[in-house]
């Protein structure tokens, strides 16, 4: 039996946040392509950034991969291909710890830099500060969970949180699984959904600009005046004569 509060926290909130995430990105892309940028501050300061930024970004990419593994892939699948619980656990903890620590260290350097380097701090918007707070909360809670659940507790999130998370996308709702999870996981999940809701309105949109197309496109780009962004389709009767 699930209570109303559980449904609110583990069904309503996720769907609301994910909707904001999707619609927000569509809106932002439609109306603010010009504002869609990494807003790099490297021209102001390079010494700390050179250290902190790759640490953070590569760390968080591994963390992301870990989450795709842990949340996205059912336990039965990994067991089917012969990855035992022990092996999975060892990989998750070892890679996860390295990635998590480098993420946190990198993020600490970046936040320290943002606060102490004058020009960088001046260029920080309110939205940036909010985003940093939420992002840092999510990351720190996640790392704490990893440590606690591996050192002290025995909670297997692949039987709990993961099933609930996948259920959100399959409309097979299991709020009771989340309600039974340790408080650390609950807080991490809630903070993460808050971050998703905030995401489209922050500089985090640059994640979706990862320029993978660069690997395959020709080096020199030619474009005609005709197909430039910003010039709308001509009105009927004003089309170009072919």
């Amino acid at each position, binding site marked *: 039996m699930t209570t109303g509060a559980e449904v609110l926290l583990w069904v309503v909130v996720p769907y609301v946040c994910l909707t904001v995430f999707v619609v927000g990105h569509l809106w932002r892309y439609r109306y603010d392509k010009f504002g869609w940028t990494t807003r790099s501050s490297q*021209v102001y300061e390079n010494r700390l950034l050179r250290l902190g930024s790759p640490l953070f970004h590569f760390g968080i990419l591994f963390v992301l991969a870990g989450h795709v593994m842990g949340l996205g892939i059912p336990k039965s699948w990994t067991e089917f291909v012969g990855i035992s619980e022990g092996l999975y656990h060892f990989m998750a903890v070892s890679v996860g710890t390295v990635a998590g620590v480098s993420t946190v260290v990198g993020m600490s350097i970046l936040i320290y830099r943002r606060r102490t380097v*004058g020009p960088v701090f001046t260029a920080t918007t309110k939205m940036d500060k909010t985003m940093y707070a939420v992002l840092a909360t999510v990351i720190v809670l996640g790392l704490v969970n990893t440590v606690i659940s591996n050192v002290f507790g025995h909670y297997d999130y692949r039987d709990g949180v993961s099933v609930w998370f996948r259920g959100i996308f399959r409309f097979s709702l299991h709020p009771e699984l989340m309600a039974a999870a340790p408080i650390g996981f609950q807080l991490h999940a809630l903070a993460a959904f808050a971050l998703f809701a905030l995401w489209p309105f922050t500089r985090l949109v640059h994640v979706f600009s990862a320029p993978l197309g*660069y690997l395959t496109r020709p080096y020199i780009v030619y474009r005609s*005046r005709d197909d430039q962004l910003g010039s709308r389709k001509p009105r009927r009767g004003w089309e170009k004569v072919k």
Partner: protein
Amino acid sequence: MRPMAQMAMVMNLDKCIGCHTCSVTCKQAWTNRSGTEYVWFNNVETRPGQGYPRQYEDQEKWKGGWTLNKRGNLALKGGGRVSKLLHIFSNPKLPSIQDYYEPWTYNYSTLTDAPAQQHIPVARPKSLITGNDMKITWSANWDDDLGGSIDHGHKDVMLKNLGDKVKFEFEQTFMFYLPRICEHCLNPSCVASCPSGAIYKRSEDGIVLVDQDRCRGWRMCVSGCPYKKIYFNHKTGKAEKCTFCFPRIEVGQPTVCAETCVGRLRYIGLMLYDADKVLEAASTEDDHDLYEAQRGVFLDPLDPHVIRESERAGIPRDWILAAQQSPIWALINTFRVALPLHPEYRTMPMVWYIPPLSPVVDIIRDTGHDAEDGRNLFAAIEALRIPVEYLAELFTAGDTAPVESVLRRLAAMRSYMREITMGRPADESLAAAVGMTGEQVQDMYRLLAIAKYDERYVIPPAHAEQAHSLEELATECSRDFDRGPGMGGSGPFGEGSGAPTPITVENFQMLRDRQTSDTASATTSTHGRVNLLNWDGHGKPAGLFPGSDVSQPDQPDQPD
């Protein structure tokens, strides 16, 4: 053959007096916004000198442009695609703001608001980056006219190859100005470096532009351009560059820098080139052959075969005619006096230069000889190795032969025309000595010395049937932009977010903000804005002049 049209420029360095009018008018037109304070799409460097940004020509440091890899193939000097993506979180070769200079303003209000007092009030320089007091130590033309070159003149990257012993003698005797804009290269390494694919070469006229809606601020183009002519707008987080004033070019007007050049030293025109040959030419093995290789890429606009192929490629007939009358074609090919800047970067630059003869002339005159005499000039070009070698470092990757050839032609023209001006019979042997006829020399003289506006700028306007898709022609409803998002300064995601604004309107607003603002960075307040377009000419428009009460700048004007 794949003919394409390229808008190109040639600058005659003999005529440049280093007045910086081009830089200032360009800045007023394009980079007077906050975030681009340090940006000069057009800058004028005193050579020898470090240039702007400092020592940008040191490609061992900045890794700009292209190079040949071990297999002899053309590759980005700063690393290929995978390497670029691996370094995307922190660009290892990005110049810092200090490599350009820290932009500043003065707190003028301490002057205008000063009470009657015994001491003269002082306006202190304030950094436009931090807003704090700062000490001015460098700028875009700090070493103007060799200023301070005793201290840092030896830092000129080009002097490295000239050896130590010549340095000081050389600095005392020889100086010229080098105005620089984006080269709008045929093989642009900035375009190739852009991970987002936001920088593109316009297929109609070859102008290289940054799509501000697609740029994601990865900054690889800044490192990739060996001329350091792509700048990072630190407020919007986007790359910006010289646009070749495309809104003006599209309607047949020359660029702002060319239009306002008091020396009338700039020429603008079309070049036709074979796009299929660019890669091969840029891969030429020997640096010294790159100049000739690039000339080989150009197509003769008078060749019937070229005309036929160009028409087949969709180049309009009037553009082909313009290419035939192009002063660029004449200077590069017919008279062969224009040379590319740093062909060794292998980007196939399209802003070329006529190297200056004046250093040679000045030296002859200072020694008391006749500086207009062709034989004296020829002998001096032979004897004065240092200026020639320096020019060769700039324009021909160190090969002195083409530079000597150009200087000899300029010298011959100078001497030949003197005879005519003095009413003496023309000396055809002078023309013959540089492989020209007297008639060609006179044609060249006409183009270099007295060419009128429409001879210097042969710019076919873009086509009327394309008018709707041109950025700057107002065939859209003008209200689409008025009070749209982004018009009022900062959007919700930092400065410059929101919908794009028409170039000119934004510039006017930003300029006014900056000029009327009391703070170091541009104010975001809409108070005190005046739209002179709505002013009917009667009385003073509200808010044009600051009110006596600073807190209420919008109040109606009091009768005097």
